[in-house]
């Protein structure tokens, strides 16, 4: 049992565990910095609301148009007769003026290579009136200083707010919010 190790070995092991913890944290940092530095910078339109996370403080929830997307107006290769529950989707974005908008949705990663795309989970269904894709790529929150959530929310309600996002190999990270 590890608890019975000699002192010298135990001291070495505590350094090993410390190293493991620092490696885990470094991977977290690198995983995000890689996306920010190497990724394509795109701008997406958002509508914010203001909740709070227990561990991470105040944040603004960002609602994107693609969170609830009507696929009848967008190119895709999904079968409307198949129910897609909690599945992985790849969404391609193309610039339309200064803002990037979704242009193609698929479950096949080979079809999106060489394009700006975001990978995320979601579900897709079709009823009498529309085909809806609920898509969550994990960039729906923006953390703000404590007590500033409301203030920022009020500011951004006055204008049209956009999220600046870095996208790299399907991963996306929000880098800022801007009024335009």
């Amino acid at each position, binding site marked *: 049992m590890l608890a*019975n190790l*000699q002192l010298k070995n*135990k001291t070495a092991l505590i350094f090993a565990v410390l190293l493991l913890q620092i490696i885990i*944290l470094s991977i977290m*940092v690198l995983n995000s910095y890689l996306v920010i530095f190497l990724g394509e910078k795109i701008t997406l339109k958002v509508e914010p609301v203001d909740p709070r996370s*227990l561990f991470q*403080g105040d944040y603004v929830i960002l609602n994107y148009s693609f969170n609830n997307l009507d696929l009848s107006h967008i190119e895709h290769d999904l079968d409307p007769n198949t129910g897609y529950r909690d599945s992985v989707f790849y969404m391609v974005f193309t610039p339309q003026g200064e803002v990037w908008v979704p242009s193609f949705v698929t479950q096949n990663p080979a079809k999106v290579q060489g394009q700006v795309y975001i990978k995320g989970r979601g579900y897709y269904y079709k009823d009498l009136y529309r085909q809806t894709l609920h898509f969550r790529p994990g960039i729906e929150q*923006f953390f*703000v200083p404590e007590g500033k959530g409301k203030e920022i929310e009020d500011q951004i309600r006055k204008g049209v707010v956009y999220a600046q996002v870095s996208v790299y190999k399907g991963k996306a990270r929000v880098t800022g919010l801007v009024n335009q």
Partner: protein
Amino acid sequence: MSFNNQLQRELTLWLKEGLITQETADTLYQRYPVTKRSMTQTLALLGSILVGIGVILFFAANWEVMPRWMKIAVVILSFTLSYLSGHYLTHIRRDFPKVGYALICLGSILYGSAIWLIAQIFHLQAEAGMGFMLWYLGVIPIAYLYGSSLNLFLALATLTAWFLAGNYPLGPAFVVFPILLGGTILPLAIRKKDLFNFVAAVVAVYLWFIALGTKLSAADFSLHLGIVSLFILSIVLYLSVHLWDQKKPFFAGNFLLSISFIGIYAALGAFSFNAFLQEFYLYRKFELLNFPYLIAGAILIMAVLKLKERKVSLKDLPLFLLYLLVFPFFPELGKNLPLLIFNNVVFFIFAILAIYYGYLIKSPFIFNLSMVLFAGAIAMKYFDFFFELLPKSAFFIAGGMLLLLGSLILENKRRSLINSMGRGDGLAG
């Protein structure tokens, strides 16, 4: 003085005198590990937890005055220092093992706060994602390295939180969770004969069953299967608790006493809040709500008899309910500040005496229960009085540091403290 205390003192002395080598001392230390939890250890653990919460809240505040890289550097440095100082106190200096283990626990909490800090910096929602899993992966080696119950519990809590917060579909997560639980948490709990973590792990299995049942029913599978499985699991839990130690009932024979302690706490605690006092006066005209006076009257008779026989001791803590008799002398309208202050003083005197009582009668169960209730009382009062007034992180960190400092002094003075309490062994182990 307990055997563990005496052994530690003697080994330090023998080492200094060159009678034994470091290796022999290590072997002897590990042969007789400290197993019982003392007041010092509990205070130190509470202090660590408070500091940990304070640091998490500090970073959650997301203050702009500190650059991101500096925040990350500060938190990494904090948990490194916490682990190393804990290791130094428990394994090299050896004379502050309890504070040392509390610092190791603090290191694990601070490591968790680093995960949340990094997720915050990159605007990632860590709760629903991998945050808890990464916390678990960092903490479980510490639990094995030190055989630490608290780190084991932290590992169990983070693993369970990962599974529940992720709300995963039926798939790999439903297999990974029981494998990690059975492969890492349960073996250490069983090897250490750690009943608390064993029961907590079984509760985690319960939660897994519930999640499994929910997903299966959503996927049109039979819910009956889940219910039958839960029933079988309940029987296994019941049998395993009894097979664990037949000589020791689950509540260590103090079930009724514990219930009465909790009841008195609840009564005293309730009367220490102004809102409750107001309501109490408002509805006092209803006869049923006058029952505290009946209880107080009965206790008064008991107290008179006991005083007459001079038999009053700490075991008569319920006599504290006598204080209810002062109520009719206070004005009913407005904010009864003097009464409120009085009630709070009585509540905390009771809380501290209850801890001392558990310590005195050598009942770890009553002692720990009183500590938990005391911590609950502190938390209640914190939210009641200071929530709007102080920065939350500063309050927690200051409170935690004070407790850690207190436990350091207490551990240093333990011998004289035990002697002054007139005991030779028991909880201080």
